[in-house]
């Protein structure tokens, strides 16, 4: 309802301006003409406030400016300026056209027109720069006029400018829109008041004073109303103040009658070479309703437009100032500067964003040149070799700043945001040749078209872009096989072409199934669905996995660095994240490698087990000998091979295999041998595993230090795993050692799946879900103590440091070859990471991993085994027996106490090092949920970080895990 704010860039260009070709009805009366302005009394407009306009508007009225006075003053100024311009060399500023595409395709025409004008090089020094607006309203639009108005507003700014320099001014578009719409709103009242049948013309003049030359610019909007006679009223209009936020849009009704400076020219066909004269054609339909609503601003947004730093003679090279207009030149896509072949490489340098002069790098390209992106000129081809051309054109097309600004695309009446544009462009069937403008899009059927026009294409349905479709989006005239597409409220068309009555479940028919439909479509030039868009609907539900264009990759990627001392389970967490968030966590090749890895691991475990068996056998035999020295002869006699039997003994065949395996393992080329041996030994393995000797050894596996804790998992499945056709499951991969550690660094890009429940699904979350995350896992082993490489990760948002809780009683060899508690090593590594200058002010999330092992272990081994935790004295030890049975009284278990204690220890350490807060989370790498939660937690932390200014610090404490029972 309220006129909203949109913005316009007003360009000031030197020397000349030109008019649009007039397309309206023949003009019988005089054309409007720019009115001289009193510089001291510049009319200035302010921004339209957002308040809705009441029916009865009482707008403040500005006192009219006396026309006589004005003309006099202005003519004086005109003289002055004219004389000044005589001294100036005639410089031609390139034409700049900001074309907001209208549904009528008027832009193309006008653009060509203006180009024609520019090349026509009719240099007219005009005292005032003038703006041409062309408003065109298509015929039978119904209720929501405002959208049409704003969208169909073609704005052309040929601008003139007196002095070279930075004289680019900006006019708030909203002023233009607001005032024009308001005036329109009031036209009726005014008309009634005036009593004539629709003379409505107003011209607003806008002025900016300059230090050097007080060039005045003039904006004039004249409207033809109802095709009636033109009453060209040149008015000194509402004050256009670009700085003020409060509106004072005054439509001085009194002035309409009082002021009449109709000294325009009366040529029926508007003379294009008449630079100072501007025509504003606003052709409104005859059958227009009186419900003029101006509720929305258009998609126009301020973009500071670059101008060439130097102005030169027309046709000359901007750098060497030589050449004429026939010399071949390359044009900067931003500022229109032209360079000859000698200068282009110097002026444009390495062209990281395509053809832009060095000073323009990083600026938005001129929209009118979008079509030329990636199209190389002959000159460049001559200057550079093929490879270089290819790189430049690729950069020009794909670099981020050259992309279509999302605000310029308006879908269903709402300008897109960045993420929506990505979504639109990366969908399986994207709209072809997306240009700035207003579009409608039917989410259900996937139909896509320009606002007010027929659907032009069928794109992927169910994309979450733009606002809800408006009933009159396609003007309601699209009929397909008797079913109205968009606009008829009674039918719904689904993406597969089936249609059903509103509110009904049953499908009434299937559009594309009818043989004639496609033919009809061809006749009516309506789109038919492409093959890809016909594919099943669920492929669109995971747009997530669809690859975005190259230039989008860097943006909005939040990096998490996952790091931890070796054995802290970072690899498991990483694998878990991969399984959680990727549709295809591991490719076929990867799976094959993992399969081999797991199998070789199992052989290794088996070797360790066999080694253990030999030891146990020997021990047993020794025991036997000690216990029954006398019966030794009998024993030998019984086992005819001269071997003694214990429960750990195995038969000769298995013994041979066992010896072979151990030999291979000692020689160290297990990996080289085993794939071939799998088939051969599969039956043996089965026999071996079922033998009592191996089972016996397996029962005593806790005595085998070499055997990792995960070995049990694999050994129990050994028979299956060592089959030739074994396929590793996700759980197998999670448990497997060495899957990710082959490389020093591994990363996975992912998106958090959208929350399943709708309650906390608000619009801000919607955008968040488009944020992409990257989990980078770095292996600490082989990365040295001094962490030179950490500098590379200064762009991560959060460091996730993993510590294995169960490490507290384990020992490892440090770089000085001495045995150190692994928890202490973890702590040392933590300290070096936290205090690294690269991670100054970085958020840290501590993941305390392997809680399941810890919980079990802490019951057996005291936490004080680690010297750092020697003051752990849990107070609840007496009730522990009860609490383990009945969780009703909420007495924390020893495991929980230990976890809180360690968390506090790390927090204290962290705050002593950095004076900041450490976030701690409990995780069990083998449980998908806990990994998911902790990564969500990391995301939340990053989000808080972004919103930190809005929150007080106290809110953070809610999430911190405090264990006050251990404070001392």
């Amino acid at each position, binding site marked *: 309802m309220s006129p909203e704010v949109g913005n316009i860039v007003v360009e000031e260009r030197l020397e000349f301006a030109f008019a649009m070709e007039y397309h309206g009805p023949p003009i019988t009366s005089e054309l409007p003409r720019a009115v001289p302005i009193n510089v001291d009394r510049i009319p200035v407009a302010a921004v339209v406030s957002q308040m809705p306009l009441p029916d009865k508007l009482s707008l403040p009225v500005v006192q009219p400016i006396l026309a006589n006075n004005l003309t006099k003053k202005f003519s004086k100024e005109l003289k002055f300026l004219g004389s000044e311009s005589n001294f100036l060399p005639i410089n031609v500023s390139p034409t700049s056209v900001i074309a907001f595409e209208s549904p009528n395709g008027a832009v193309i025409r006008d653009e060509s027109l203006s180009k024609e004008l520019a090349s026509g090089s009719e240099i007219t020094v005009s005292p005032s720069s003038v703006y041409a607006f062309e408003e065109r309203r298509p015929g039978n639009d119904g209720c929501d006029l405002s959208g049409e108005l704003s969208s169909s507003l073609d704005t052309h700014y040929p601008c003139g400018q007196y002095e070279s320099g930075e004289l680019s001014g900006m006019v708030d578009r909203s002023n233009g829109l607001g005032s024009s719409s308001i005036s329109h709103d009031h036209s009726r009242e005014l008309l009634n008041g005036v009593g004539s049948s629709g003379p409505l013309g107003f011209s607003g003049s806008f002025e900016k004073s300059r230090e050097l030359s007080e060039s005045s610019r003039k904006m004039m909007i004249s409207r033809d109303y109802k095709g009636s006679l033109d009453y060209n009223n040149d008015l000194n209009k509402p004050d256009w103040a670009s700085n003020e936020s409060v509106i004072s849009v005054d439509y001085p009704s009194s002035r309409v009658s009082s002021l009449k400076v109709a000294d325009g020219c009366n040529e029926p066909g508007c003379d294009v070479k008449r630079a100072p004269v501007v025509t504003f054609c606003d052709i409104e339909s005859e059958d227009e309703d009186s419900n003029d609503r101006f509720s929305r601003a258009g998609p126009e947004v301020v973009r500071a437009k670059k101008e060439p730093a130097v102005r030169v003679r027309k046709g000359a090279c901007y750098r060497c100032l030589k050449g004429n207009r026939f010399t071949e030149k390359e044009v900067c896509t931003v500022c229109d500067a032209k360079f000859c072949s000698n200068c282009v490489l110097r002026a444009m340098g390495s062209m990281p964003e395509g053809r832009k002069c*060095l000073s323009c790098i990083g600026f938005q390209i001129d929209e009118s040149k979008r079509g030329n992106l990636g199209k190389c000129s002959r000159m460049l081809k001559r200057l550079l070799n093929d490879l*270089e051309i290819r790189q430049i054109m690729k950069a020009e097309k794909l670099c981020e700043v050259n992309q279509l600004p999302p605000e310029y695309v308006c879908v269903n009446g709402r300008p897109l945001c960045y993420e929506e544009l990505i979504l639109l462009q990366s969908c399986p069937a994207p709209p072809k040749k997306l240009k700035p403008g207003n579009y409608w899009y039917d989410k259900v059927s996937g139909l896509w078209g320009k606002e007010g026009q027929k659907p032009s294409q069928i794109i992927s349905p169910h994309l979450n872009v733009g606002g809800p479709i408006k009933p009159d989006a396609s003007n309601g005239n699209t009929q397909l096989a008797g079913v109205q597409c968009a606009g008829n409220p009674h039918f719904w068309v689904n993406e597969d072409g089936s249609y059903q009555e509103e509110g009904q479940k049953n499908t009434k028919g299937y559009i594309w199934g009818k043989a004639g439909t496609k033919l009809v479509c061809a006749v009516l030039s309506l789109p038919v669905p492409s093959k890809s868009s016909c594919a099943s609907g669920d492929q669109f539900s995971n747009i997530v996995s669809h690859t975005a264009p190259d230039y989008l990759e860097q943006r909005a990627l939040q990096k998490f660095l996952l790091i931890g001392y070796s054995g802290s389970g970072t690899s498991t967490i990483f694998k878990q994240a991969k399984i959680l968030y990727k549709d295809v966590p591991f490719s076929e090749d990867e799976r094959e490698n993992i399969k081999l890895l797991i199998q070789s691991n199992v052989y290794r475990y088996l070797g360790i087990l066999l080694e253990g068996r030999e030891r146990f056998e020997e021990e047993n035999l020794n025991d036997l000998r000690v216990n029954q020295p006398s019966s030794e002869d009998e024993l030998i006699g019984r086992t005819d091979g001269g071997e003694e039997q214990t429960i750990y003994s195995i038969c000769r065949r298995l013994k041979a295999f066992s010896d072979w395996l151990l030999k291979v393992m000692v020689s160290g080329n297990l990996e080289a041998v085993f794939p071939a041996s799998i088939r051969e030994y599969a039956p043996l393995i089965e026999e071996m595993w079922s033998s009592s000797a191996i089972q016996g050894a397996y029962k005593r596996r806790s005595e085998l230090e070499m055997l990792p804790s995960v070995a049990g998992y694999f050994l129990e499945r050994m028979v299956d795993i060592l089959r030739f056709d074994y396929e590793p499951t996700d759980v197998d991969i999670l448990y497997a050692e060495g899957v990710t550690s082959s490389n020093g660094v591994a*990363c996975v890009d992912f998106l958090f799946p959208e929350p399943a429940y709708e309650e906390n699904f608000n619009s801000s979350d919607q955008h968040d879900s488009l944020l992409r995350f990257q989990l980078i896992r770095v292996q600490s082993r*082989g*990365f*040295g103590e001094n962490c030179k490489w950490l500098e590379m990760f200064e762009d991560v948002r959060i460091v996730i440091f993993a510590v294995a809780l169960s490490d507290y009683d384990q020992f490892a060899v440090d770089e000085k070859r001495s045995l150190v508690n692994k928890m202490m090593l973890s702590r040392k590594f933590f300290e070096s990471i936290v205090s690294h200058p690269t991670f100054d002010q970085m958020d840290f999330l501590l993941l305390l991993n392997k809680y399941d092992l810890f919980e079990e272990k802490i019951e057996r081994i005291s936490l004080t085994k680690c010297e750092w935790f020697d003051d752990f004295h849990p107070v609840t030890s007496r009730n522990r027996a009860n609490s383990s049975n009945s969780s009703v009284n909420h007495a924390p278990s020893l495991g929980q106490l230990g976890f809180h204690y360690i968390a506090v220890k790390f927090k204290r350490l962290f705050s002593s090092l950095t004076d900041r807060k450490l976030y701690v989370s409990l995780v069990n790498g083998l449980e998908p949920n806990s990994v998911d939660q902790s990564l969500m937690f990391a995301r939340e932390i990053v989000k808080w970080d972004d919103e930190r200014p809005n929150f007080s610090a106290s809110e953070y404490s809610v999430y911190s895990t405090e264990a006050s029972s251990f404070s001392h």
Partner: protein
Amino acid sequence: MSVAELKERHLAATQTVSALRDQLKQKRLLLLDTDVAGYSRSQGRTPVSFGPTDLVCCRTLQGHNGKVYSLDWTPEKNRIVSASQDGRLIVWNALTSQKTHAIKLPCAWVMTCAFSPTGQSVACGGLDSVCSIFNLNSPTDRDGNLPVSKMLSGHKGYVSSCQYVPDEDAHLITSSGDQTCGLWDITTGLRTSVFGGEFQSGHTADVLSVSINGSNSRMFVSGSCDSTARLWDTRVASRAVRTFHGHEGDVNAVKFFPDGNRFGTGSDDGTCRLFDIRTGHQLQVYYQQHGDNEVPPVTSIAFSISGRLLFAGYSNGDCYVWDTLLGQVVLNLGTLQNSHEGRISCLGLSADGSALCTGSWDSNLKIWAFGGHRKVI
């Protein structure tokens, strides 16, 4: 022999070694009656003087989105390869400043890159612990990416530096965070020799840089986080020919002097040093006192073609030009017009010595050339 006894003997041996090292140091100091700068001054040499236009930035290579970590020139043509944290290698034409190749890397954390002697392929390495070779002539795949033509895997730590053995495309020397250097045969993709490592007398910390002797490609020198530089003979992998002590911080950069008898080092202790490989002596220390107490580490060094100038990039964005004879700073590229806005991370001189290329964390590369009457120095 018990463990305790072993430990005792180890301790004793370590002490002996350090005592001997001290003796050596003393002896060297006795023998070293003067340094290069002192001698030059006594000979009446004057430092090279630079006019305002003698060394000017004549090209800026823009196109990377991330910090530039490494660059290398081709020996014959004026092409440069640069590696950046945006995960790309870019091959530039240094004359026109255009890109000829932009290679997307499988691992974005790249630390080093090198041009092959024939200019047919480039190598890069980084945190993925793999040295990847790209053949520039191979056709691109569907997405327009250049495929990896060879993966040299075997290092257990990041690949910090790599350099092709001059005059042959088939061999490459890498240094790695696993405390070793490696000599690779690219055609087979296998590591011919490993220099250093757990059981050998090599570096005791991450190796950060290598430089191959230009006049005798069997010799190369490596710089490491153990604050030493070591000279190696590719035929003798088991032990270093010589170990050069002197630095008090990580040796970030090593570069052979053009004559092949000396080499320069740059270190975290803020100094550059010049060592003689024949005598093992430290010839000169290049150190400029900064205003405040901070000592910016040297990130990268390069010699001019005559060896008279030493270009050294510092982490604070300075790039000093040292007169190697007199040990004086004759120019600071960081204060010139159009200089970098970030840390200068890598430096390289073109093969003919006519231009210097600097790469910086501000994601740009700049080419500096000698202006005026001076073409090469």
